[in-house]
């Protein structure tokens, strides 16, 4: 909701700067998502209004909150309308009080359609509305100001002045002001005159009662329509408007007269020759006072504070609750949101200040064990990384062709009904398509060993799987993990057809097992170590990978060597040892290590001479620091 700072001043005298107001409102529960300065003294604040606070979708509503926040008084405006006798009549029939609990209107005659005044257009534009003409602009203006959606009908286009308000019947049609023709179901609220349907109530007016440049007489309507019906119709017709947005969230049943009279007085102000008719106010349903009984010990206990009844009452009064001996009467604009005493507690806490609540530790409790299923999966991850596999996370979806080429029936797969992209249509029946797709994304990687533990799906069930894949290398690594976990089974190779389908140009081996089929007893502990590395950006260009082998002292630490290499140049992204073995032929207590050096350039491909220079620097540094010798 966009709020113009200077517009707020119509309702309340704020001394705080727009910046200060934005900060204070955020802490008060209305997050200001952005602020745009206008000149030196004005600004538009864009507030996130949560769906429970329909009452805040207006300048008045936000002014009320600011009044509570700063302890100020609202400048309540009264509109004195001198109504005149008009020799025209309209007749309102509400078929069911549930669909329209209140209908307030005035007839306005002798209108001249013109542009609205500049000041009004300017305010409308800050909210995001395009000015149309004086009548439409005023109805929009009043909606933004008070939160009451208004509508103006061209009286002369309605047969016998008849407003029949009823539920639509399936198949009925209406063309709305935006030129869209809607075929209705039986859950929209419409207005008709026996001849035609001319209004999609609470959502958008109809072409057949449109105010145009020839309009002389209007019916100015401020009504309360049922929020659930408006929501359903708006969803069904895919037609959301500023009016429907407010009705869905609840419009103040006590605010219809304010809306209609404010608009009528503005029309009179800019078009002085108009005649304003009598106020028509039909309350199809009596709105009853809604009271919530509360007691202060309960509220104190929930919030962890210690306020007296008097202090609580004062807080509630700031939000326009009427406080009685044991209860609070909810103001008409808050009944959609405030229903239980816990809701009162929140308002009391907002005034008290959430950040003033004294923090306290939870009572001590015996430490429960990690859940066995979670612990087992994490220990499997630790084993797999220990053997040299890197953990991969991939999406739970899989491509139809890839599912089918792997031999799964697409008809056995769980399907999403409303995916925003075609690749999100099927839930994966196995980790295999995910793992192969991930391999294909790294065509230049020397060898890939990855695993994943996540859920897979069929039409009824979901279950955890553990999948390992390697490229190039023999099955040795997978078999090593299997032997640690005492898993029986056979490592499989991926057929050439499948490799082609996934665009993989290397042999791939894999093993996949359902977690529940692993019968290991997991005596180990989960590692809670966290990497000290921070992310380094990845180039859009393919990396250059060079291998180096050194003979080093038998006790040389791989971690130290890797770290030392990383320090040579910013162009080195990753250093990984892929081989280490001892042999007497290197000399006593010596070992051979082999490393992949991943180099990249953020601006383009890595120039060859730069690569050579870095590699030479690495060799020099490692030979010096670790008494190493390059193996050629």
């Amino acid at each position, binding site marked *: 909701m966009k709020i113009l700072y200077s517009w707020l001043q119509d309702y309340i005298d704020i001394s705080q700067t727009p910046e200060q107001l934005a900060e204070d409102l955020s*802490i008060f*529960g209305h*997050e200001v998502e952005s602020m745009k300065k206008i000149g030196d003294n004005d600004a538009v604040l864009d507030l996130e209004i*949560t*769906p*429970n606070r329909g009452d805040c979708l207006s300048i008045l509503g936000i002014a009320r909150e600011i009044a509570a926040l700063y302890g100020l008084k609202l400048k309540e405006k009264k509109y004195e309308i001198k109504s005149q006798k008009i020799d025209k009549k309209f007749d309102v029939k509400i078929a069911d009080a549930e669909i329209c609990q209140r209908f307030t209107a005035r007839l306005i005659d002798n209108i001249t359609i013109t542009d609205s005044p500049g000041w009004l257009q300017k305010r409308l534009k800050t909210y995001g509305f395009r000015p149309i003409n004086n009548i439409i602009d005023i109805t929009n203006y009043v909606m933004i100001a008070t939160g009451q959606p208004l509508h103006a009908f061209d009286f002369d286009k309605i047969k016998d002045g008849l407003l029949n308000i009823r539920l639509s019947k399936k198949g009925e049609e209406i063309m709305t002001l935006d030129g869209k023709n809607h075929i209705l179901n039986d859950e929209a609220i419409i207005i008709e005159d026996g001849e035609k349907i001319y209004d999609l109530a609470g959502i958008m007016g109809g072409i057949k009662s449109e105010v145009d440049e020839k309009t002389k007489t209007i019916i100015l309507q401020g009504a309360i329509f049922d929020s659930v019906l408006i*929501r*359903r119709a708006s969803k069904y017709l895919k037609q959301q408007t500023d009016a429907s947005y407010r009705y869905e969230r609840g419009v103040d049943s006590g605010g219809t007269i304010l809306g209609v009279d404010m608009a009528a007085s503005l029309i009179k102000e800019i078009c002085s020759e108009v005649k304003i008719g009598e106020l028509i106010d039909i309350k199809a349903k009596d709105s009853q006072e809604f009271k919530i009984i509360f007691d202060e010990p309960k509220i104190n206990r*929930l*919030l962890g504070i210690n306020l007296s009844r008097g202090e609580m009452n004062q807080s509630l009064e700031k939000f326009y609750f009427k406080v009685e001996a044991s209860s609070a009467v909810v103001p008409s604009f808050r009944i959609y949101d405030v229903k239980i005493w*816990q*809701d009162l*507690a*929140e308002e009391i*806490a*907002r005034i008290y200040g959430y950040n003033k609540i004294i923090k*306290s*530790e*939870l*009572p001590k*409790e*015996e430490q*429960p064990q*990690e*859940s066995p*299923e*979670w612990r087992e999966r*994490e220990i499997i*991850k630790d084993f797999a*990384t220990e053997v040299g596999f*890197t*953990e*991969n*996370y*991939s*999406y*739970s979806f899989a491509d139809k062709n890839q599912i089918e080429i792997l031999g799964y029936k697409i008809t056995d797969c*769980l399907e*999403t*009904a409303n995916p*925003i992209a075609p690749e999100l249509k099927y*839930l994966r029946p196995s980790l295999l398509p995910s793992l192969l797709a*991930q*391999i294909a*994304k*790294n065509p230049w990687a020397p060898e890939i*060993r990855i*695993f994943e533990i*996540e*859920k897979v*799906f069929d039409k009824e069930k979901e279950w955890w799987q553990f999948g390992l894949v390697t490229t190039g290398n023999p099955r040795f690594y997978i078999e090593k993990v299997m032997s640690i976990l005492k898993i029986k089974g056979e490592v499989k190779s991926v057929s050439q057809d499948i490799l082609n389908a996934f665009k993989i140009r290397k042999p791939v081996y894999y093993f996949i097992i359902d977690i529940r089929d692993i019968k290991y007893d997991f005596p180990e502990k*989960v590692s*809670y170590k966290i*990497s000290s*590395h*921070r*992310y380094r950006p990845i180039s859009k260009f393919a*990396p250059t990978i060079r291998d180096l082998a050194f003979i080093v002292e038998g006790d040389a630490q791989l971690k130290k060597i890797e770290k030392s290499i990383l320090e040579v140049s910013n162009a080195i*992204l*990753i250093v990984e040892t892929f081989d280490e073995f001892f042999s007497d032929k290197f000399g006593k207590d010596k070992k051979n290590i082999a490393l992949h050096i991943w180099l990249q350039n953020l601006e383009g491909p890595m120039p060859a001479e730069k690569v050579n220079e870095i590699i030479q620097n690495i060799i020099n540094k490692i030979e010096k620091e670790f008494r190493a010798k390059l193996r050629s």
Partner: protein
Amino acid sequence: MKGNLHPLSQFMRISLKYFIERGFQIAEGLQVETEWFNFDALNVPADHPSRDIQDTFWTVDGRNLRTHTTGADIRFAKENHLVPPFRLVVPGRCFRNEATDQTHEHTFYQIDGIAVDKDLNMGHLIELLNGYMKELFGLHIQTRVRPHFYPFVEPGMDLDIKLPDGSWREMLGAGMGHPDVLKNMEIDPEKYQAIMWGMGVDRYMMQYFKIDDIRLSYSGNMRFLKQF
């Protein structure tokens, strides 16, 4: 020689450790969840605009890919007939039916928690989450809370941390369990009070490791995975 554990796994572990040490038991739910557990049980009825906040993947059989792990609190408590006091922490994968970009993902992880006891109040909740932020980002980290609406809590709040440039960043949502939600767990809201919170792990993890693109986690890019 060793492979790398995914940064999300590493981050999830230290997060869970914090809560396990405070008496929370890990519970897990279903990724394909019923409408009732994902929405209705949490006070999010179909006819209310609060349903629109989350873009949901529906399955053809009328279930949905869970949009949070909060529903698992209810499922776990109900199916195991938990009697207070109890404390649960629920980690897991969640989904939103939305287009991906540098800051949006349709797949993400959440950690959710609930503690139910006779005398838990907002002060306990704020302290628990404040301590968690200190555990992750250091003892110097400053936090604040702001009122916010979530249908399954009342009162509700968001928690922010202060960034080095002085601005505040929203980290998680929390509140006191709504009585209707407690009833859906078969707990008497007159006798017991609940503290609840829920948070997306991906963004914390990114902040921790200084990662600038949320999609990297699921990219399978070895140049990403091998960095941590």
